[in-house]
């Protein structure tokens, strides 16, 4: 080194070095200016943008879910409840590999192929960062297993939410209906904000009809989340407003009695409070458990319901359209009297058949032994013993126009307007109707068929009950309604007279008496149910043909299959002196209204009458806890 240094020129070396250092110092200064300019640009010029982006990063608006309105019966019994359930949900963006996650989860708890299939389907419809349910209703054990293994289930979460529960299961399935997952079609028509907190919507029944009231108003929470989307804290929130609670006119006890009375038979029953139009009971049998649908029904269960020959999903009470048969007779008699086409003294001779002028084939009297009801059959006897020939004759005298027009004001041939979706209108045939539906003129033969509730005529059990209630109330415009009050505020129901219908009181008395004698006279077709009554029931039996039997042939149930047997019908109201309850019902293939249908009506009426305090027109008002609170 010393040797080298002898030849070095330290001053020159220092100069070279100083020159180079100066150049690099300049470059350093320029680079420093660049980097500082970059930070000034980000932090001052573009600060606002980044501040917004940073807030968007961390602050998310999360819907807070309103609890769905509860549904009570008139006695305060819960018909539709919300219960906490625990679901396994997955946020795809937070799972590193969806397939691995699903594999890990299915190692821990049972995940069926069905679950996975549905999950994949839901996955296609969801918004980014939305929780997609994989499995519903986790058991406590499953929750424990998942919680312990949470560390290797990145992206999976257990979420608690309120789920609809129907404690009475099949008892109210058709009327209350059920909620289910919002499907693709529904998701296009609903307000996505209003439904942002829920994936359920009313599908049928009251759940659907009162969807807007039951849903409630969604609230919101501004939450701060970390990069994994976990909520760190709630910044501010607007509370959700729970859905309105509904109190129905329905009476669970009546409903249970009615449903049990069908005892496996197919059929439907509607019972109406004559004073208010409130539906006391509405049954369609057989039924099904609506809870199956709440979290998505399995294909197997669904197929079972759909393929059952008894069609449990079918709401016979408002959608089943049946020939009303003889149950229509008191109404037609009343129309004849009102229009003076017959009088109370008018009698006929019934040889067991009826010939229409110009038609070779006779109309049989279905409800008599060979030889008919004989001479001197008046309207009362024709109703009590259900004489067809009387009505063949009176219908020809009255004409289809009168029968059709007046029947309509009693609720036939059009929807009743009950607060349920999907009600069917039945058919009250008329000249116009036939022209439109069949492009044919109306014949007298058609009128004769209609006169005993057959032919083109169809009515739902609800319509029969409404008809019965309007007869019972002597011409009040009774409209069937299910909801008694919404959030304790009574729903106004105003009962008016049927407009432009002024039937003489003596005719009302006459028809009421005749219907009473159907039950209480020894000759009445429903005399079997009168035993032991301490009040009077007015009724009318009916039989609706499922297949047509030739006039000369005898109907013999032993020769035909049961699903072709006649339907049994019954309409009734009670008590006769001050009608409170009106009933319409059908037992499919029950054969005879008297034996199959009338006893069911009696059980329902009996239960209703027994539950009333004596002398009190209003039902159980003081005992109802819900109503008690309101006062």
């Amino acid at each position, binding site marked *: *080194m010393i040797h*080298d240094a002898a*030849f*070095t020129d330290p001053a020159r*070396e*220092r100069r*070279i*070095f*100083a*020159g*180079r*250092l100066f150049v*690099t*110092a300049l470059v*350093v200064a320029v*680079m*420093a200016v*660049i*980097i*500082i300019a*970059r*930070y*000034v640009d*980000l*932090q*001052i010029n*573009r*600060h606002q*943008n*980044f*501040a917004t*982006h*940073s*807030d968007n*990063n*961390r602050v998310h608006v999360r819907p807070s879910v309103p609890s769905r309105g509860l549904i009570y019966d008139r006695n305060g019994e819960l018909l539709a409840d919300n219960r906490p359930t625990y679901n396994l949900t997955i946020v795809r*963006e937070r799972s590193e590999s969806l397939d691995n996650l699903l594999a890990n989860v299915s190692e821990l708890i049972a995940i069926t192929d069905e679950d996975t299939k549905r999950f994949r389907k839901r996955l296609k419809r969801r918004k980014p960062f939305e929780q997609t349910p994989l499995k519903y209703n986790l058991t406590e054990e499953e929750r424990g297993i998942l919680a312990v293994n949470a560390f290797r289930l990145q992206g999976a979460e257990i979420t608690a939410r309120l789920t609809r529960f129907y404690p009475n299961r099949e008892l109210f399935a058709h009327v209350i209906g059920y909620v289910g997952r919002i499907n693709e079609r529904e998701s296009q028509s609903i307000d996505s904000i209003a439904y942002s907190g829920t994936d359920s919507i009313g599908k049928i029944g009251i759940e659907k009809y009162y969807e807007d009231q039951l849903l409630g108003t969604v609230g919101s929470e501004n939450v*701060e*989340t*970390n*990069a*994994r989307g976990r909520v*760190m804290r709630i910044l501010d929130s607007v509370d959700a407003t729970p859905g309105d609670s509904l109190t129905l006119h329905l009476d669970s006890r009546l409903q249970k009695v009615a449903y049990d009375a069908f005892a496996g038979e197919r059929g439907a029953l509607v019972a109406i409070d004559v004073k208010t139009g409130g539906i006391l009971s509405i049954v369609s049998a057989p039924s099904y458990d609506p809870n199956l649908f709440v979290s998505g029904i399995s294909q197997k269960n669904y197929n079972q319901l759909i393929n059952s020959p008894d069609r449990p999903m079918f709401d016979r009470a408002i959608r089943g359209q049946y020939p009303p048969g003889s149950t229509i007779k008191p109404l037609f008699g009343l129309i004849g009297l009102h229009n003076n086409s017959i009088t109370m003294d008018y009698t006929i001779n019934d040889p067991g058949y009826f010939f229409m002028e110009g038609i070779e084939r006779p109309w049989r009297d279905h409800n008599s032994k060979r030889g008919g009801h004989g001479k001197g059959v008046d309207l009362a006897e024709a109703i009590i013993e259900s004489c067809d020939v009387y009505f063949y004759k009176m219908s020809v005298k009255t004409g289809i126009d009168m029968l059709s027009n007046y029947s309509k004001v009693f609720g036939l041939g059009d929807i009743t307007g009950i607060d349920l979706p999907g009600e069917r209108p039945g058919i009250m045939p008329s000249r116009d109707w036939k022209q439109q539906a069949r492009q044919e003129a109306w014949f007298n033969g058609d009128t004769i068929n209609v006169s005993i509730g057959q032919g083109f005529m169809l009515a739902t059990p609800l319509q029969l009950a409404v008809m019965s209630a309007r007869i019972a109330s002597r011409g009040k415009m009774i409209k069937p309604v299910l909801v008694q009050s919404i959030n304790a505020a009574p729903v106004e129901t105003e009962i008016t007279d049927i407009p432009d219908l002024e039937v003489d009181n003596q005719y009302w008395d006459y028809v009421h008496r005749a219907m009473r004698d159907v039950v209480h006279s020894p000759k009445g077709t429903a005399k079997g149910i009168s035993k032991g009554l301490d009040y009077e029931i007015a009724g009318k039996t009916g039989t609706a043909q499922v297949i047509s039997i030739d006039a000369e042939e005898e109907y013999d149930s032993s020769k035909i299959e049961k699903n072709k047997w006649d339907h049994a019908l019954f309409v009734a109201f009670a008590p006769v002196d001050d009608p409170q309850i009106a009933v319409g019902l059908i037992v499919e293939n029950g054969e005879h209204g008297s034996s199959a249908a009338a006893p069911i009506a009696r059980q329902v009426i009996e239960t209703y009458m027994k539950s009333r305090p004596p002398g009190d027109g209003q039902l159980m008002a003081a005992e109802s806890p819900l109503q008690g609170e309101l006062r």
Partner: protein
Amino acid sequence: MYRDDFVRRIQSPGGDRRSARSMHLDITLLLTLVALCMGGLFVLYSASGQNLYFVKRQAVFMLFGFVAMIAVAQFPVRFWERWAIVFYIIGLLSLLAVMFFGVGAKGAQRWLDLGVTRFQPSELMKVAVPMTISAFLGKRFIPPSFQHVFISLSLILLPVLLIMNQPDLGTAILVFTSGFFVLFLAGLGKRYLLSAFLLLMAAIPSFWIFVMRDYQKQRVLTLLSPEDDKLGAGWNIIQSTTAIGSGGLAGKGWMQGTQSQLNFLPESHTDFIIAVLAEEFGLIGILSLCAVYFVFIGRCLFIALNSQSQFGRLVAGSLGLTFFIYVFVNMSMVSGILPVVGVPLPLISYGGTSVVALFLGFGILMAISTEPKRIRMEL
């Protein structure tokens, strides 16, 4: 000339300065280092999610670093000049050892497991390479001849290629830069500079095709348009610029940075720690840090300029400039003007070997800084 300097220093010694001098410590470097370390620990506490484990470990490394620095400073510059080549050889052997026995993380093999602790030889080379080149050129005429340039470049490229093979492109570039700075400061001819520049331009395409790994290319592409891959490679840059930008002038406050505290920011306690500082302390924090860094780097260059030996000048200049490059590359990559290469922010980012290696360098700087006094005492 230096006699005058030397006389001036003797005439105006402060009391502290004298005791610092007797410890062979440079008071300016020492104070800025303490400021950087204290500030770094504060930011680290917040950036690690209030994790004292990291802070304690980092503090232990810093203390160890300080001790090492003071120890190194006690040896005369000539000692380091003589022994530089030995450290270089040890470093080179360690790099070879890494190749065969190294342990790694994230697909790269960078560490030697010494049982007690892990040790990253490539960090050591950041000091050993400039020292060796300086020692080599310090004994020779400058500007260096072709032969010397060739030997110097070979000495630089040997470890650089080994580091690149780990692969650790960031460190490789920094090691190369530290060596190249020595050559440049030694007055490397303009012809070399021009041909080096042309070579670099020509090499870039083949570099892209043959040398760079897919993830490295991805990082460059990401820099050009981070929005293309918002949740993948672009995520880091989007989140770090968001953190920096949302900090504004005054910042969100210590431990109040939502980007970092809510884990939006990746690697927040290591390579991306400056984004935490920017978010929580704003531009004021950034400028304060820069000010300290510039005092420090300025002091390094000043020491270089005033060094009595060729070796001292070259080492001090190279170390100071390399230190600046660390800061520049890190701040640029985090703010999205350079691709993401794994360069930590010196003394702020968490990382043990890096801290110790830096302090070894500072020890040599201190030794150079206090060299004139040693000469006087020997006289």
